[in-house]
Structures are given as C-alpha cells and as structure tokens.
C-alpha cells in the first residue's frame, strides 16, 4: 500500500471515530418497475423533440426510406461494425481513423434503451450503439430507438443497465444535441458533439 493511501485511510478512520453510525438509505422514491409503461413511447417522442431533435415514428420496414429522406443520396454515412443492413450505402467503423470519422457526414446507430420521462437515449458501446467516438465526432447522428426499448423512468434505465455496468462497458446518456448556456444564459445548441440529432422510433 502506498504511503499516501495508508495516510489517507488512517485520517478517514480517525475522523469517523471508532464505531461510526451507518445510516439506512431510505428509498421511498418511485422505484424501477413502479411506473406504468403505457404511453411511454409517446412521452419519449414528445420529450426528445423538446430538445430540438427531430423525431420520426415509422414501422421497421420503412427505416431505409426514412434514412434516405433524412440523409439524402450522396452523404457519407458511418455505422457500427457489424451493424445490420439498413438499405443504404454505409461505411462500417472497422475501425475508422479519427480523420475518417471527421470526414463522415453522418452516423447511423441503434441504442441500448431510451428513457421516456427525460427524452434520453442511452448508448452502451454494444453492437448497436457502436464505440463512443463514432457518435461523437460526426456532426449528424441518426439514432434508431426500438419502441420496446423505451422505459418509463431513470430508475428503470439504471436497473436495465446494471449488466452492462458490471461488464465495464462505457455508457453514454444523450438528451438532445449539445448545448451551452454560458453566454448570458442564452441556450445555444451545438457546441461540440453532433449538432443535428434525428431519432427514428420503430415499432
């Protein structure tokens, strides 16, 4: 054990005293599974649209056409390695270099789950989400959210992500495009990270 670690732990123990009282943690808030899932998809679409993301609700079969409408025909589009075919021409992140990522016009990914209450999309570095740089460097992110992956609340999401957390996967919560309120408290969208966010909700 390093000297610094030993010193710090000794100071902590001395500060707490010989038998510190360990309080119970009251968890009377709305727990995972306590909120109805009815209406979650509607609520999610409403909330994420409030963040100036564009929401498209389509059937799975219509995803390719929707992507073409969003991206146009000549866009250079990246997807996670091994991503299922989405009916448009794409570049797989197998992996791409930083310059190649920077040269993409857009990136299309799936997601791990979405939170209705807060309009949040969660990426978990799995095969649908892709690695983190992929959804960070390109300026336009098109994210596919399956309706059955929408959960009502933050506690629901945290519970569902416990396994990914145990596996040590990096997890990113995305709630709208990037923003700052540092200039006179005027909210300005799009500082770093994708300035355009399209969300396709499939059922």
């Amino acid at each position, binding site marked *: 054990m*390093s000297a*610094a670690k030993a010193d*710090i*732990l000794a*100071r*902590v*123990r*001395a*500060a*707490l005293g010989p038998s*510190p*009282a*360990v*309080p*119970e943690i*009251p*968890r*009377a*808030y*709305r727990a995972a599974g306590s909120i109805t899932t009815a209406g979650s998809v509607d609520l999610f679409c409403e*909330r994420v649209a409030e963040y100036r993301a564009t929401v498209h609700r389509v059937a799975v079969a219509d995803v390719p056409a929707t992507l073409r409408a969003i991206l146009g025909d000549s866009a250079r589009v990246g997807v996670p390695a091994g991503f299922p075919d989405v009916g448009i021409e794409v570049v797989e992140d197998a*992996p791409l270099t*930083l310059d190649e990522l*920077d040269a993409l016009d857009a990136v299309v990914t799936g997601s791990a789950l979405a939170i209705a*209450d*807060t*309009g949040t999309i969660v990426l978990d*570095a799995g095969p649908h989400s892709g*690695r*983190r*740089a992929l959804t*960070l460097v390109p300026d336009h992110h098109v994210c596919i959210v399956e309706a059955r992956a929408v959960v009502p609340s*933050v506690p629901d999401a*945290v519970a569902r*992500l*416990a396994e990914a*957390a*145990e596996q*040590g*996967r*990096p*997890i*990113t*919560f*995305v*709630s709208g*495009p*990037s*923003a*700052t*309120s*540092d*200039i*006179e*408290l005027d909210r*300005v969208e*799009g*500082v*770093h*990270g994708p300035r355009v966010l399209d969300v396709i909700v499939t059922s």
Partner: protein
Amino acid sequence: MSFPAAARVTLQDSQLRRNIGKATGLIRAKRERAVAELPDWEALRDAGEGVKAHAMATLPEQLERLEAAVTAAGGVVHWARDGAEANAIVAGIAQANGTDEVIKVKSLATDEIGMNEALGEAGIRAIETDLAELIVQLAGDKQSHILVPAIHRNRAEIRSLFERTIAQGQSLGNEARAIAEAARVHLRSKFLTVPMAVSGANFAIAETGAVGVVESEGNGRMCLTLPRVLVTVMGIEKVLPSWQDLEVFLQLLPRSSTAERMNPYTSLWTGVRPGDGPAEFHLVLLDGGRTDVLADAVGRQALHCIRCSACLNVCPVYERVGGQAYESVYPGPIGAILTPLLRGLDEAPSLPWASSLCGACYEVCPVKIDIPSVLVHLRGRVVREQKSSLSPEALAMKAMAAAFGTRRRYEAAQRLARLGRGPLAKAALPGWTAMRDLPEPPKETFRDWWQHREPRPAPARSEVVGGDAPPTGSPPPGASSSPPATAASPPPTADSPEAGA
C-alpha cells in the same frame, strides 16, 4: 480580504450584479418547474442525503472497493494527500507520455488545487475546453459561479475577447451562436490531436468502478473519449456505494443545476476498454482537506455536496455580491461552509458570517445539507478557536455572564444599564451598534413596578369564576392602552372574542 471587504468591492460592479441577478432569477424559476414535475422529489432528496451519509460513514470500505474495481478494469489508481501531490502525479503522467499540452474538462477539484498553474510551472499547458472556463482562462479572470463561471461577462465582452485571441482577424457579430461557433472551431483541432486529457468526476461507483461526468456541451465526451491518456482527479467524498445510487443522483443533479429533466450528455466509463476510448486511465483520489471536514461531526455533511449550485441561485447574499467576493473556488452558501472547513477556519474566518441565515439554501439543496446549522456551528468554532478572548465582544459576553449570575447582580446591572444605554454603549460596542438600534430603556423596569404596585384583594369566594373582579392599581408601564384583561378571565385567543374589548 475579509468577506465584508471583498463584498464591498464587488457590490460596486453593476454589470456583475445585473448579470448575476438575471441569471439566478431565471434559473430559480426553471428549477422550481423542473422539481415540481416529480411527485417523489422529497423522497429523492431523502435518498440522496441517505446515500451520501452512508458513503461517508463507510468511506474507507468504499474507497478500497472503488480502487479494486477500477484496477480490475485496467485503470491505475493514485492517492494524493494534498493538491501538491495530486498536481505532481498529473504532471508526471504528462511527462511520461511526452506531452506538453493537456485538454481539460471543467473540474472544480482541479481549480481548487491550482492544477493549471502547477502544470504551467512544469512546462505543461492545460487548455480549458468548457466554454465558460475557456472565457475565464483567456481573460485571465476568475470564476464567479460554480455552474456558469463566466456569467459576469456580457456577450459583447466575450466577443471582443475571442476576436483578440482565438478568432483573430474575424468579426464574430453579436449572436451567441457565432461566439460559440468560434469556440467550437478553435477547440475541435485540440480534441482531435492532444494526447492527454484531465477531468474531474461527478461520482464514482464503488461497486462497479464506473466513473461519471455530467455535462452539456460535449467537450467532456471529447476529452474522455479521444485522447490516448485520461487522468481523472476526484475528491474522495464523491464515491457512491452502488450502481443503483445513480438512479437518485441522475434525477437530483440535472433538475437542481441546469433545471432540465436531463443534461445533454452523461458519460460513464470503467477503467480501460480496448478499441473504445483512452488506452490509459488514471484515477487520482484527492484528500486535500476532506478528512478535516469529515472530522467535524456537524460540518461533515458539507461533503455531501453534488455541486449543483442551487444554493447559489437562491441566496440573497450571493445574488448581490457574486462568487468572487468569497475568494474561493466554492462560493455562495456551500462555499461559506466548505471553504473554511477544507482550508482551515483561520484561512476563511469571515465566511460563516456571509449569510443572513434565511435558510433558502437548505430548502433547495438536493441532498438536504443543513447549511444554516453548519454556519452557526462554524461561527461558534471561529469564536472559540480563532477570536481572541480579549476582544471587546468576548469581554462583553464575559461581563454579561457575570451579571446574569445572581439576582442581586442582575438587578444592579439593570440599574446601571439604564444609565449606560446611551452614548456609553455606542462607544463601547461601535461594531454592534453601527447597524442596530438599541431599544429605548423603559422609565421603570418590570421588576421595579412589580415591587411597588399596590396589593390586590383576593377575589370573594362567592363570585363565579369568569366574572369580572375590578382592576386595582395602575397598569404596569408599557402596557397597551386597551382595557386590561382581569385575572379571572382567560387571555384573548385567536378564536374567542377578546375579553373586555
């Protein structure tokens, strides 16, 4: 400088007052709306307080669990007793990786330990990437708020600052968007090329080793993902016991700080993940006075702070003087208790008095830190530990304690006091009387009146209880001019009609 002296300076800055007043007013209203949406807000606050208290009470165990989990995931954990040790560790990692530049995510802990300056002395440039921190850094200025550190700066000032520095030769216009765009362009090249980043952390989970950063702009994601080496400096009080605890803080923090349902980006990472993110991760656990805070049984709740800044936004003192008057990285109500506890009471003895004790901070604190109680506790500590026992205030208190000691002394003191309340008192306690009026002494004290009043006849036994016995003697001095209530009738209450009125 003492707080009153520093405040006197910043009170002159009308732009600062206007900006801060506007900013805090807006955010206060937004926060209330965000919080009102959750029917279980109070239960969340209780849970937040409970988790933090539990974490502090079991801190040695939580820190060891965290170290084990981060190490198992390929990270390296360092321990730093103070800022100097932490800065040396960070500089050492930069030098080992052959870089003279690091990109930074906003981190109050690194500001607290003066990391940028220390790295500068070691020949390493620390580049702030948070927009407000960039503004403050370029202007050679100081932060005025925990969450929006450059709020004291107007758009026009920021624009001309950028045109002088990162956007030379350009004319940016007055739109906030164009100003933000200049920052984006300037920083993007740094994100894509600088090999090392330094961040703070909002929390770290002992159970899984996950470390988390909550942000809005995306510069955090850039710094946490793109460089080869990531160093996170985190105060030891930020550790949370279990993954489940995130469900509490990811609700408490965004709604309390930016007053949103959720902030744009929250990043959670564990150690090193091959093919995704930095190849090297270092976690520096910083004491830096936190064990001193922990040692104060009343003050240790200050360690529960999640740095949301809700208390700043409701504080009538902060609203008028701004953050710089506190001369600390932590201003406002939380700063008034945390700064003296972290640095030592002798370093910031006037801060516990930087408050009217209105309690608004306690009401909005998402983890229920009882700031007013800690302020009063610290005032007591400062008086006992710092102030000389020969100060006029201390001597006056001793004299009063003696005077209140026996009845005879008290009555004698009363007579003396009647003589002394005029110019004598003002001369003896100028500080006390500068802002307060001493009440006019009565012509006759209550005791004197009581002793000299005429005795009253006992009521006749045949009279019904509740009947009126005639009043005797003149009313005591200072009594109201309405007819006196007699002994037999009950005193007027709010519900019953006033007797004799």
